[in-house]
């Protein structure tokens, strides 16, 4: 009997995977078609859309059909540039700080850089990039190069206003160029470990009789956790990749953060998801 249930379970998982593959295929095929067709296709599949991994809320403005397949780099880049600017204009209210949480095993640096540059171009002040292996932090020079390159490609001369600041625990150097927008590269050390360090600092001051244990308050801890970062809490975190977890991303700071799940590292997907969520009546405009 247990064997039968085991087999049925494997079958169920297989069905879910097939469902997801179908959704991805359909999404590519139906891009540019009316939403009704999409919804009908989804209804035809037995499992709910949520399991298929596509964002639930699809109240969106016009979708630009993907024009990226035309040859000729100049024309393509010009297209992307104008689309970036129109994306920015169509978004109602931008988050001040967005987090890009990458859960993929081997993310493409080009794709990440693309997303970062898109966010900056669209007008988001702070962009945090995170992966739970600390890979971005370890290879931050490579990421920096990619970002600068993408910026030059896409924004041409305007790109000089970029500021790429790499968050560190004080050990590394800060590459600060100018003010906004700012890119922060985060790793798991910036999460629980920084809370532990702040706790240690407070305990040391108690040990040195500089304060009592009863003096420790939420705001005190908050100030410590913010002092070395100096950025607002992320209003929005976009999670890329297959894992439905924050994987240690800034636990203290995500108190009121909204999460969007994106399956792939494409700016089209990000733009689409963002506009759906930022449209009037979208959830993120509500206050807790």
């Amino acid at each position, binding site marked *: 009997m247990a064997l039968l249930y085991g087999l049925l379970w494997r079958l169920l998982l297989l069905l879910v995977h097939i469902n997801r593959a179908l959704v991805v295929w359909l999404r590519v095929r139906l891009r540019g078609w009316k939403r009704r067709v999409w919804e009908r296709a989804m209804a035809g599949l037995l499992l709910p859309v949520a399991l298929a991994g596509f964002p*639930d809320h699809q109240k969106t403005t016009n979708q630009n059909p993907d024009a990226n397949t035309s040859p000729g780099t100049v024309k393509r880049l010009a297209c992307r540039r104008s689309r970036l600017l129109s994306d920015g204009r169509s978004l109602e209210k931008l988050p001040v700080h967005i987090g890009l949480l990458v859960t993929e095993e081997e993310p493409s640096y080009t794709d990440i850089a693309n997303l970062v540059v898109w966010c900056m171009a669209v007008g988001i002040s702070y962009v945090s990039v995170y992966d739970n292996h600390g890979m971005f932090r370890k290879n931050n020079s490579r990421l920096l190069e990619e970002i600068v390159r993408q910026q030059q490609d896409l924004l041409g001369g305007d790109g000089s206003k970029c500021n790429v600041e790499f968050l560190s625990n004080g050990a590394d150097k800060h590459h600060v160029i100018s003010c906004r927008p700012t890119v922060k590269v985060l790793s798991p050390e910036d999460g629980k*470990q920084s809370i532990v360090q702040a706790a240690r600092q407070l305990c040391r001051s108690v040990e040195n009789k500089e304060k009592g244990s009863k003096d420790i308050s*939420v705001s005190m801890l908050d100030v410590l956790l913010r002092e070395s970062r100096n950025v607002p809490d992320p209003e929005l975190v976009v999670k890329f990749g297959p894992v439905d977890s924050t994987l240690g991303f800034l636990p203290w700071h995500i108190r009121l953060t909204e*999460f*969007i799940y994106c399956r792939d590292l494409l700016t089209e997907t990000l733009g689409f998801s963002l506009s759906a969520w930022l449209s009037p009546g979208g959830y993120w405009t509500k206050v807790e």
Partner: protein
Amino acid sequence: MSWIREGELNLLERISANILKAGPMPKHVAFIMDGNRRFAQKKNMERQEGHMQGFNKLAETLRWCKHLNIREVTVYAFSIENFKRSKDEVDGLMELARQKFEKLLEERENLEKHGVCIRVLGDLNMLPLDLQQLIAKAVLGTKAHNKCFLNVCFAYTSRYEITNAVREMAWGVEQGLIKASDVSEPLLSACLYSNKSPNPDLLIRTSGEVRLSDFLLWQTSHSCLVFQSVLWPEYSFWNLCEAILQYQLNHASIQKARELHREHQALQQLEADRACAAEHLQSHGNGKPASGQRRREALLQYTACREERIQDFLEALKRKRDSFFNDLWSAGVSA
């Protein structure tokens, strides 16, 4: 209405449960039971009625969890932020809590039969005293049960919980039980209100909101997060199955991430111990560099001392927390 629902699953539910149980199952599920007010609005009821329905749904969900062998459930009943709501609503919720905890105490035998242990997590001193006393009775009365665990977060926010844990560690330092250098991730976890529970495997939030709202931020760092758009009072067995399936699809990658984090954390602890042991050697040494053998011995000794210190501190913390509930209970009895 009761906290415990009796009754078996129907045939289809039972078959689905058995299929799911063939895969990895979450041992601890956390719920943010959101949507009571929207449900009340939708059905043209009073808000209070919406909250009542929400409680009933909780009891039903616990029944499903029992059938799915999910032994531990944590729920977000009342946030410290909710104190900002209208006085009427807050008073209504406190009254509802009073009724529910009184009902709980009436059902003592049933709870014992099912082995349900109730824990209440939060800054309980923010609540009215009589409610605190009821809570203390409920917690102490079910303390010995160990078949399944229900953690109710009441007057809770995660930031307050983390800050409280830091305060407790600072208290330990003040009392001379531990040193500031002993502060570590596992120690902080052991000072949280939820220290008796493992971290949740799955967090479910209903009503379509996609925030954590200051709930278990520390504990859910490597949990599967599932956001469902159904309103809490309308939650069904199939919604729960959908969430569990989501967990199962993520299980392998999350386990891997947890393992990575654990290894990293162990490495950091080892390095910290090494640094402290080296410092200790230097200050007590005779100026000559210590041999490898000497350094290893010093490290082992330092680690053993640290672990003993921490054990003593955690025991003292446990006594402090137990006496908080015992004092409340005896004050309630004598009143």
